[in-house]
């Protein structure tokens, strides 16, 4: 038999490790899954309430809604508005649209969005709006030109140009012509600056942000300025008095109207918000990454029911690794190679104490019944089938008994894999006849110990978090198992076995 060279073997292992680590890092950085379990992240729940008076006819309400942006990832959104049809439209202008055939009187529409605060979320590119120009009458025209010239000469690009304009128009001791302009715009500086910038052939628009502060209600949006330089764009706080430490969510970031009501009047929009800390695990559980890239080996793209199943399946390699460790490095003997892993999975559902007591009870009783069956001189298949039936009978009996005694904990015994238990009983019974009770204790004890250690590893929240969220972990487990498979050193128990050589 030709064996691949040691070098290519180690190469393969390194490749597996590299792929595993790369996948983990990819998941970590792109989908922001934290590596450490229990790392909490901030989730903001923001509710927008739209109010207006309907004028007895068809109504269409269009509201801009926040999308992916620097600092925030959208987790989920929903709307509540009885009688209205609600659509979330995702085109160049992401918006929520309510519509109803006929409405009258005061109407209230609600929209709620959960956002994850995250430093990894990147700013998506936003296309610049078309340039427009404003026709100013004198003396405004001269004022604008004067401000423009001053700002232009002291700036290098569109962004510094915008900064200069903001500075000049914000000055308390401003020159006469600036005060004139401010008055003409009724203090709405962002619109004024956007108009001036467009006049100077710089693409800019007013966008709306929401300052997030825990527990605030009936909040208003803050107008901000977005300026483009080529494909890049930047957000500017125009009213310098508004700059805060609080995070700013861009509710509308493309220069579209925030609220547009057709068929109603006196409309307004108010916001309330709540901050909560959630472990990312929970926060992300319902956040399926929408980008269906091949690299997204996420179990989260499956329906919830399948996810739950996979959660257990993905833990199996951990159990297998534990078995490998205990057999190859320690030299523990178990009855049935991977039976302990299945027992460990049963323990996860029953809790450890109940599990061990249940396991020992079922196996002990099963051995007694098996002792009787062996006297009946049955064929093997029939005998094992009889043991399976007995195991089920024992388990049912225990369940009913513990229920009657008020020990609901005992009901969990139903989670045991019955066929596996039947085989275990059969094998231990043969072992007892062939090699005596001592060997049964050694192998039974070994199995139980392995099961407990595998249980310990598999129910650890950190392990569950890693295996469930990072497919890359499977590659690393594979590499470790392969490495163990090539270990030719002594087992721990051999050090005892060969202790006679000590002298």
């Amino acid at each position, binding site marked *: 038999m030709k064996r691949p060279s040691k070098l290519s073997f180690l190469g393969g292992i390194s490749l597996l490790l590299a792929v595993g680590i790369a996948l983990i890092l990819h998941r970590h950085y792109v989908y922001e899954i934290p590596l450490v379990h229990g790392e909490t992240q901030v989730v903001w729940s923001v509710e927008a309430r739209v109010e207006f008076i309907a004028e007895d006819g068809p109504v269409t309400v269009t509201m801009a809604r926040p999308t992916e942006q620097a600092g925030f990832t959208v987790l989920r959104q929903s709307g509540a508005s009885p009688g209205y049809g609600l659509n979330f439209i995702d085109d160049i202008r992401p918006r929520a649209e309510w519509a109803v055939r006929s409405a009258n009187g005061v109407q209230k529409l609600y929209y709620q969005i959960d956002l994850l605060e995250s430093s990894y979320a990147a700013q998506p590119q936003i296309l610049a709006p078309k340039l427009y120009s404003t026709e100013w009458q004198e003396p405004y025209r001269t004022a604008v030109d004067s401000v423009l010239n001053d700002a232009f000469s002291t700036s290098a690009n569109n962004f510094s140009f915008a900064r200069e304009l903001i500075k000049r128009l914000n000055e308390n001791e401003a020159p006469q012509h600036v005060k004139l302009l401010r008055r003409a715009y009724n203090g709405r500086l962002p619109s004024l600056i956007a108009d001036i910038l467009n006049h100077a052939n710089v693409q800019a628009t007013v966008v709306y942000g929401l300052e997030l502060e825990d527990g605030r209600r009936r909040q208003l949006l803050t107008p901000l300025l977005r300026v483009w330089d080529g494909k890049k764009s930047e957000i500017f706080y125009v009213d310098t008095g508004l700059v805060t430490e609080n995070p700013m969510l861009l509710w509308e970031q493309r220069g579209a109207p925030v609220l547009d009501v057709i068929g109603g009047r006196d409309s307004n929009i108010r916001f309330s918000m709540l901050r909560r800390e959630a472990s990312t695990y929970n926060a992300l559980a319902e956040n399926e990454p929408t980008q269906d890239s091949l690299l997204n080996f996420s179990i989260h793209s499956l329906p919830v029911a399948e996810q739950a199943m996979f959660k257990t399946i993905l833990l199996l390699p951990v159990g297998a690794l534990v078995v490998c460790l205990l057999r*190859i490095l320690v030299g523990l003997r178990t009855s049935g190679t991977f039976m302990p892993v299945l027992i460990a999975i049963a323990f996860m559902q029953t809790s450890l104490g109940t599990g061990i007591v249940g396991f020992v009870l079922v196996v002990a009783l099963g051995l007694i019944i098996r002792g009787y069956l062996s006297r009946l001189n049955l064929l*093997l298949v029939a005998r094992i089938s009889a043991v399976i039936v007995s195991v089920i009978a024992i388990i049912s009996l225990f369940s009913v008994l513990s229920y009657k005694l008020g020990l609901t904990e005992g009901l969990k015994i139903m989670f045991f894999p019955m066929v596996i238990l039947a085989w275990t009983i059969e094998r231990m019974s043969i072992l007892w006849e062939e090699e005596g009770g001592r060997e049964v204790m050694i192998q039974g004890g070994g199995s139980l110990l392995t099961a407990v250690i595998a249980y310990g590893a598999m129910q650890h929240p950190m392990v569950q978090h890693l295996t469930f969220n990072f497919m890359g972990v499977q590659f690393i487990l594979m590499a470790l198992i392969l490495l163990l498979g090539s270990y*030719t050193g*002594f087992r721990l128990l*051999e*050090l005892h076995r*060969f*202790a*006679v*050589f000590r002298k």
Partner: protein
Amino acid sequence: MLALMKDFLISPLRLKRLGILGMNKRNRDYIARYNERSLFPLVDNKLITRKTIGQAGIPTAELITVVQVQSQVNDLLALVEDYDEFVIKPSKGSGGKGILVITGRDGESFRKASGVLLSADDLKRHVSNILSGLYSLGGTSDVAVIESLIHTASALTRYSVEGVPDIRVIICRGYPVMAMIRLSTHASDGKANLHQGAVGVGLDMKTGCAVRAVQHGKSVTHHPDTGQDLLDLCIPDWNTLLVMAARCYDVTGLGYLGIDMVIDQRYGPMLLELNARPGLTIQVANNAGLLTRLAKIDRLSESETRLPAEERVRLSQAWY
């Protein structure tokens, strides 16, 4: 704590220096390397072993009959009618499991080697279990092989109770590497399995005489039941036995084999069975590490493994 560990454990470095072979290394570097998977049925199935070995002229115990299907179980008594003593074995058994030795009859009953009486029904159940695959590797269905009983050479009978002492020779690439004899004791129920309490006696490669004896991994000097001085033990026909063992390599092509042989009073050395996964306790019985000896074999060229068996045995005896 550390002192306590010192009593129970030996340092792995020390073991390595002594050239002790561990289970992991045996599995990977010897069994997996020298024993081709496709050849395993040759040793795992005693019927096939018997046929292959028989064709090469290596003597084995006389075959009485083979029970192939459950319906034959009822005719069992008729099949063994002419025999008072016989051995029932599962063809694919391992580790001596499922071997039943009958040494006589007592009316309707059969007497086991230990003296325990078995009814005809017990016997039938045992055969039926064998056919169901209870003792076979992986639980696959099996056949029961019934052979005539071997009578141990008188030179060895006093060293063993209730069972046939068998001689285990490790053959690597055709060269005998290490040998021991396993003596059954009352504790081992007539079975020659070391972990069941049989005594293992290491044998000198040149002379076939005892080097050291162990039971339950501890050094002993006398047989626990017969009180015989074990270190006096010498195997008759030693060279014939070694050559026979070495030839099993040529016949099977398996590079790492444990060969179990017995010495029959009338026929001399006979092959009992082959084992593709021989245990490691032989090292304890010989007070020597297998690895040191195997290292020499690993370096041999392909052509050296094809030397005549007699020549290989001579070389081994010179080395070890």
